């Protein structure tokens, strides 16, 4: 029987309250949202906490998907407590960033998706986690709040290593912001051993086109090394060029060369490199097709 070690439990009544509780309790305290990463780790005694702050009542403050102008920038703001199911079902995201719906369809299963949250997924910082790859691909910004105020950290600086993030002990990830730019298309591809499993390898791709030319492109990979990886070299290769099958193949080769997969029970490093190549190609093809079909 797997049961967590004893801890104290308290429910936060507001974001400020949650931060105050974390501040009082120091590094033995942790926030729980959906609980589908943290509770299994607590059950296995990989995470031993003295104090758990439940933020599930903070939906009014932390659960939303909306497009707004922030500091003059057109962004989609996603609250950290937004659940997988809401991300899957969001028409706004499906319209602007279909990579979210692609990924959410293959994250865990519908029952788990009823609970798990965007913020929890990013803060778990598992190198195989899909939403981290999605947010890396989209060059998202993470809004982190503490008692001293709010700071904004780009995805590339958010993950410090496996299971480590830029969020300090008495801070809370409150929002993810995804910049909206014209001519966008995005897609996500994942190979898993069975439905709902962690990825053997996943690849996200986003492109921004202007008059048939790639203005910007990004690729993010999951499960290919100690970090959820974004690959700037792929973007550099694609920028300023017209999409073609040959270009897509070069991007795939760069992705395969730029990652560091390890052999484990999900597959050999060689197989994962092959997947990084092929999934990058597939995601890019679909991202380009969507960008060409997009009206915004």
């Amino acid at each position: 029987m797997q049961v967590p070690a004893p801890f104290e439990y308290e429910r936060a009544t507001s974001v400020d309250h949650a931060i105050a509780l974390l501040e009082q309790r120091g590094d033995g305290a942790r926030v729980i949202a959906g609980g589908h990463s943290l509770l299994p780790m607590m059950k296995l005694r990989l995470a031993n906490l003295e104090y758990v702050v439940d933020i599930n009542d903070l939906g009014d403050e932390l659960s939303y998907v909306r497009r707004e102008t922030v500091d003059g920038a057109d962004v989609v703001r996603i609250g950290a407590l937004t659940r997988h199911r809401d991300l899957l079902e969001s028409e706004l995201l499906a319209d602007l960033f279909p990579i979210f719906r692609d990924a959410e369809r293959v994250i865990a299963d519908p029952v788990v998706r009823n609970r798990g949250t965007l913020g929890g997924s990013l803060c778990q910082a598992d190198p195989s986690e899909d939403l981290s790859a999605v947010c890396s691909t989209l060059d998202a910004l993470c809004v982190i709040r503490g008692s001293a105020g709010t700071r904004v950290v780009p995805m590339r600086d958010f993950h410090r290593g496996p299971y480590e993030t830029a969020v300090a002990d008495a801070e809370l990830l409150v929002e993810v912001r995804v910049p909206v730019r014209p001519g966008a298309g995005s897609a996500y591809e994942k190979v898993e051993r069975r439905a709902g499993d962690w990825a053997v390898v996943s690849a996200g791709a986003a492109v921004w086109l202007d008059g048939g030319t790639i203005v910007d492109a990004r690729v993010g990979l999951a499960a290919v090394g100690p970090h959820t990886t974004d690959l700037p070299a792929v973007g550099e290769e694609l920028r300023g060029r017209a999409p073609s099958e040959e270009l897509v193949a070069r991007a795939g080769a760069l992705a395969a060369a730029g990652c560091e997969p390890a052999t484990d029970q999900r597959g050999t490093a060689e197989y994962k490199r092959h997947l990084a190549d092929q999934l990058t190609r597939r995601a890019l093809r679909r991202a380009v097709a969507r960008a060409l079909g997009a009206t915004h």
Partner: protein
Amino acid sequence: MQVTMTVNGDEVTREVEPRTLLVHFLRDHLGLTGTHWGCDTSNCGTCVVLVDDEPVKSCTMLAAMAGGHAVRTVEGLERPVGLDPVQQGFVECHGLQCGFCTPGMLMTARALLDREPDPDEATIREAISGQICRCTGYATIVRSIQWAAREEAAERATASEPVGGVR
């Protein structure tokens, strides 16, 4: 700590350790052993209950987190007279063999039909994709849920007929 929630329509209050998982609260504190405890790792789905009408794996939720919410278990499915159509569907279509996965399957089926009364087969398969039937009786489980959907559609048709019947 004290936790209060509604279980199958009744308010219950119990003293629990904060680390008590919802599945053990239901089974050990309330004696509601219809909810099964399986893999303990949120993979198998036999522990699925409804929390505010949404299916949740109760091995991966603290009882404390369910405080103030409405929990529905397989014991709460039966109608005042007779079985819930999803239960009857499993009877009619051989939806269970060993029965271990059945409580979770029934609760997910109930939530699906409440949200989507006429799901196609792909939708049903997706809805139960987080649950494992180790007897591999998925085909009959899908048929059982389809039976329930037809039964409930017929009930709705009957209920909407004018009093005195259609001439």
